């Protein structure tokens, strides 16, 4: 084992340790949420996950972005098989260790070039859509400089990785054709065979240097990417699957039933019911901060890739109101990150998701129409967070808009949201 193999091994292990530590933090943060048992309907959940996450069924509702995304998705998943060879080569100092598979190897390597080209094209199209066509949903208020840079950085890294991949194949071919030692004849190169014409004029030493450099750039790029992803919106590539698996299977119109309230209401209706014991923790109604949300809602926040389909379908946002369902998710994640960091550093935390991040004005603009939930390609439910925050505003802060407070009074006193007497409820039947 040479020095380069040892360096490779250390880099590789180091990258995975760092990645694992970050995942541990994210899992801890998600677990700061309240319990919600979703170990039901395994078969149904599996079906939804297969369709929506694996099958990308909601992505293709918007065909251009959907198909381009499938290029990147399939390219990413399948091309990672080659990573196995790269790792073995890196550790053992071999070159194209699976070449003994012969014709099958040629087929696989050739297919990777098709996939790689798909990724390259899709990433370029996405960069154009974001930065040249400037699609509205990538430039709305919550898309400040970091979210925009995050997206561009990911696309640029992927383009660089694909360029390195094709350069590696192109130089390898020239070296193979010259019969240079170590560079065994292997693989088929449907696209880089044309690209390799650029390199035929160079001597073999230079070529080996270029080939090795891009090989190292490629693998280091992947290891960097691995550790960039969990700090970025791009973490959806992992969380999309569990996120869809644990998504809401009920009718979208069914809002959660608050059991804490049921207990109180039952006491009012039935004086003989057993009141809670004095040592029971006082119940908090609705959500003020991230720790009042369920773990699924927190996982939703880490799964969001800020595509903005929710916001571009939101009737409130379309008509210029402050509400943006994407911002609800981004704020939830940012606040959870902040909460987690303060927890790690043991610093006092005086902020909360409600008010410090999300304002009542945003919450009161929601029509609860479920367009955001329907639009999300990974079944995120921003509406459930909006409603939980509203519950806190109303039941803890008594902070509803005056008109709604009036509506509550009417429902309470006369059983209708308007000021009509319940005794007049059937008057319509006698009107001509």
């Amino acid at each position, binding site marked *: 084992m040479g020095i380069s193999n040892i360096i490779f091994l250390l880099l590789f292990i180091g990258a995975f340790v760092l990645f694992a530590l970050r995942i541990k933090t994210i899992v801890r943060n998600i677990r700061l949420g309240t319990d919600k048992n979703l170990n039901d309907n395994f078969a149904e959940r599996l079906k939804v996950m297969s369709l929506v996450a694996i099958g990308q069924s909601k992505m293709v*509702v918007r065909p251009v972005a959907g198909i381009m995304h499938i290029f990147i998705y399939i390219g990413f998943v399948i091309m990672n098989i080659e990573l196995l060879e790269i790792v073995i080569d890196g550790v053992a100092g071999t070159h194209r260790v699976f070449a003994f598979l012969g014709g099958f190897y040629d087929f696989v390597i050739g297919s990777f070039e098709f996939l790689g080209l798909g990724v390259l094209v899709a990433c370029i199209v996405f960069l154009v859509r974001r930065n040249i066509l400037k699609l509205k949903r990538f430039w709305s208020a919550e898309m400040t400089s970091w979210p925009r840079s995050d997206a561009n950085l990911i696309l640029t890294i992927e383009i660089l990785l694909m360029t390195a991949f094709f350069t590696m194949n192109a130089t390898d071919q020239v070296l193979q054709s010259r019969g240079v030692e170590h560079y065994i004849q292997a693989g088929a190169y449907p696209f880089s065979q044309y690209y390799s014409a650029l390199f035929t004029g160079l001597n073999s030493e230079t070529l080996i240097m270029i080939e090795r450099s891009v090989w190292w750039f490629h693998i280091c790029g992947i290891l960097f990417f691995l550790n960039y992803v969990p700090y970025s919106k791009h973490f959806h590539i992992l969380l999309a699957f569990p996120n869809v698996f644990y998504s809401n299977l*009920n*009718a*979208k*119109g*069914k*809002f959660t*039933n*608050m059991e804490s*309230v049921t207990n*109180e*209401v039952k006491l009012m209706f039935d004086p003989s019911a057993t009141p809670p014991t004095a040592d029971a923790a006082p119940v908090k109604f*609705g959500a003020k901060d991230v720790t009042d949300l369920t773990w699924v809602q927190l996982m939703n926040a880490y799964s969001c890739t800020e595509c903005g389909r929710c916001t571009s*379908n939101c*009737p*409130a946002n*379309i*008509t*210029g*109101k*402050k*509400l943006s369902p994407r911002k609800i998710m981004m704020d939830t994640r940012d606040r959870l990150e902040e909460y987690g960091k303060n927890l790690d550093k043991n610093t006092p935390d005086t902020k909360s998701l409600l008010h410090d991040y999300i304002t009542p*004005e945003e919450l*009161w*603009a*929601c*029509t*609860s*129409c*479920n*367009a955001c939930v*329907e639009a999300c390609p990974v079944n995120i439910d921003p509406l459930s967070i909006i409603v939980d*925050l509203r*519950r*806190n*505003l*109303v*039941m803890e802060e008594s902070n*509803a*808009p005056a008109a*709604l407070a*009036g*509506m*509550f009074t009417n*429902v*309470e006193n006369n*059983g*209708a*949201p*308007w000021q*009509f007497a*319940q*005794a*007049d*409820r*059937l*008057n*319509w*039947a006698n*009107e001509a």
Partner: protein
Amino acid sequence: MEMKVPTMAECIANGEVPEILFWVGCAGSFDDRAKKITKAIVKILNKAEVKFAVLGTEESCTGDPAKRAGNEFLFQMQAFTNIQVLNGYEVKKIVTGCPHCFNTLKNEYPDLGGNYEVIHHTQLIQQLIDSGKLKVEGGSFKGKKITFHDPCYLGRANNEYEAPRSVIEKLDSELTEMKRSRANGLCCGAGGAQMFKEAEHGDKEVNVERAEEALALNPNVIATGCPFCMTMMTDGVKHFNKEAEVKVYDVAELIANAQDL
């Protein structure tokens, strides 16, 4: 034709068991425009000889606007009160004139002890037509261009997109779709208790945005299945001064008017 509107209390007193309870809802009981929808539904029920009853003065708000606005206490107080009444009458099946009542009764009452088969009035009308109890032939809407605005709480919330459309198709009219329809439909702006408050600050009203989209199709009629959508779409059409040319009707009214009920 004179309407027959029996109440549950009367039915029980007469020893009758209605097959279905018609849940009228607050808008259907008190809002002048929505009362016309209520009457259209009653006329259809009468015509098809459906044995139904209403709760009348025993009905109370389902609690939907309270729940969407975050007042879970008030919602559950309403729910428990209503469930006591409904279970007292041993109600099995309910038809509602409003998608909000429909959603709440169907999805949110079971957890609190209220288990009923709940359908929306467009679903009942479809069933009555399919089973031959109600005959619909063209009538006054024959050849007219109609576009259907999906109420969120019927469509996305409960995945019912076809019942209202299949009923409209029975009128021999031309059903045209807005670009944003079915699962992709745009809200009228009234849901989530917005009906009862001023809209937050923005640069346009949601109902104006939606009416604009509907009017772009040059329809004769904008159809819907919700009393709140009715208010919002009617106001939206008025905003563009199109109320003379374009009428907003509930699906039940289309059927009742087409048949001169």
